[in-house]
């Protein structure tokens, strides 16, 4: 019984926004809302034909995919660099970097905006990509470092004896072993970048707005156009929910790693 309430409380708000994206504007204010109704695609049509919403979608894809690539590549390099140093300094540094979590994003955003503005880089993709990557890198590096730590050194050394260079060892031996933790890292960093609002709000402009900023502009209007903004919200959440469902195992592993590994 309690469980049914929990499930209802979780699903209902999501169902409301999904169904409103297909509901006629006039029917949205009718209470109780009809579970079955005649769907309309008018909100999506307005979104794509009038507001060029596909551009926001592609901007979100460009930003979050770039952030994922930058973070995963740099994070793996750094974790591997720490490993081949064979000292504990790397672990110490990666733990120290976690302190970055205590720094509020707003404390970074305001001076970063001033800096990027003075070199005329606001309004480009570069701003949010750099900001998201830097913010995500600390946790991803820590996650990968704590995983790479458990790979036996002998394995790397025997590859070395067989004549493999250290970069080759990274690609051929370490990278395949990292697959599960990399999957966790990918879903976590994608989720973060895809959903991030504050940095994108100030560091992008009309040409580079991602979905979150597009939605924020609809919500910020004096009277909210529920149909259009529900359709926009649907487009923003469906890809992430699908990826989350497919990668459920890695999402859960990534989220709980901090507590379990500690």
């Amino acid at each position: 019984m309690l469980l049914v309430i929990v499930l209802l409380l979780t699903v209902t708000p999501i169902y409301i926004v999904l169904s409103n994206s297909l509901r006629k504007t006039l029917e949205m204010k009718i209470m109780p809302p009809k579970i079955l109704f005649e769907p309309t695609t008018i909100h999506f049509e307005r979104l794509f034909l009038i507001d060029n919403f596909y551009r926001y979608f592609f901007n979100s894809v460009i930003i979050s995919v770039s952030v994922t690539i930058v973070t995963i590549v740099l994070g793996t390099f750094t974790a591997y660099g720490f490993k081949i140093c064979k000292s504990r300094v790397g672990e110490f540094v990666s733990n120290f970097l976690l302190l970055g979590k205590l720094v509020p994003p707003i404390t970074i955003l305001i001076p970063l905006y001033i800096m990027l503005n003075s070199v005329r880089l606001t309004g480009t993709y570069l701003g949010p990509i750099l900001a998201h990557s830097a913010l995500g890198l600390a946790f991803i590096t820590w996650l990968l470092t704590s995983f790479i730590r458990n790979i036996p050194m002998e394995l790397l050394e025997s590859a070395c004896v067989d004549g493999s260079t250290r970069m080759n060892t990274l690609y051929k031996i370490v990278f395949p072993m990292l697959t599960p933790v990399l999957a966790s890292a990918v879903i976590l960093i994608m989720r973060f970048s895809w959903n991030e609002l504050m940095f994108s709000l100030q560091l992008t402009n009309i040409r580079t707005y991602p979905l979150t900023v597009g939605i924020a502009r609809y919500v910020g209007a004096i009277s909210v156009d529920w149909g259009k903004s529900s359709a926009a919200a649907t487009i923003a959440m469906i890809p992430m929910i699908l990826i989350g469902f497919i990668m459920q195992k890695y999402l859960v592993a990534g989220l709980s790693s901090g507590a379990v590994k500690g």
Partner: protein
Amino acid sequence: MRKRFNCSLEKGDLLPVLLILPATLLIAVILVIPLTVGFTLSFFNFRFGSFNPAQDFVGLANYVQFFQDQTALKSVVNTLMFSGGAIFGMMVFGTIVALLLFHLPPIVSRYIRPVITMPLLISPIVIGLIWRYIYDPQGILYWVLGLFGLSIQHFPGVTGASTALFSTIVVHCWQVIPFVVIVLTAGLVSIPTELYEAAAMDGVGAWKTFWKITFPLLLDVYMVILLVTGVDTIMVFDVIFALTGGGPNNSTISTSIYAFNQAFALSNFSYAMVISTITMILSFLIFGIPFIRRNLARVGD
């Protein structure tokens, strides 16, 4: 051959350095330098176009202004109340849901877990949008309350200064409780079932079993949840931005929202940096020591 894996910088082995350098540069340029710049500019009166460091140095004046500014002090109180309320809500309801799920047959919970984790995948701005519709005076919440004979006068939601902050806390909890559930479940699995069996044999009730067995064994897990989710509540921005924008009558303004508005709506960049610096100080004051102790302990093990 073993030697090739040593970090022998003195022999000119630059590979580890080359591997670590890009990430270090990125973090330095995007995080460390802005932090330094921001802190420095908080002692100036920064304006775009006409900024002259020699003339615009104001010392601690911006900080003095902060402590005389009623809205600023209100934003600090709101942030602390939001943090306290959200942590309390997340812990209590997260624990209840985690225990509920844990006692289900594995086949059932395997299908329920992906559903429960959905809110974690949705952007806070979308969640704000959804709940704004729910809290709408003509929306679904008041229809449900109406069934119980309650109206908007009894619970004004986001439109009333007395209940707006509570309403934003509810929304934040709705999103973050699944995280608490996931982490607690990972902890619950690690508790040996013999302990529960022994307690059941001695006829110990569920309430007592939780406080005598589960909670003490999961204390460390609770600590991690407290740190990870608590830090986020001090910096709360998205949910409030989407739901109320800080209103009505500044009753939900958080330090992050106030700093954002001062910077980007009013162009008071230096004052905004004072507010954001104070947000950071709050975060370090409350969570810094446990956070640092935990991270140092990690290096030791």
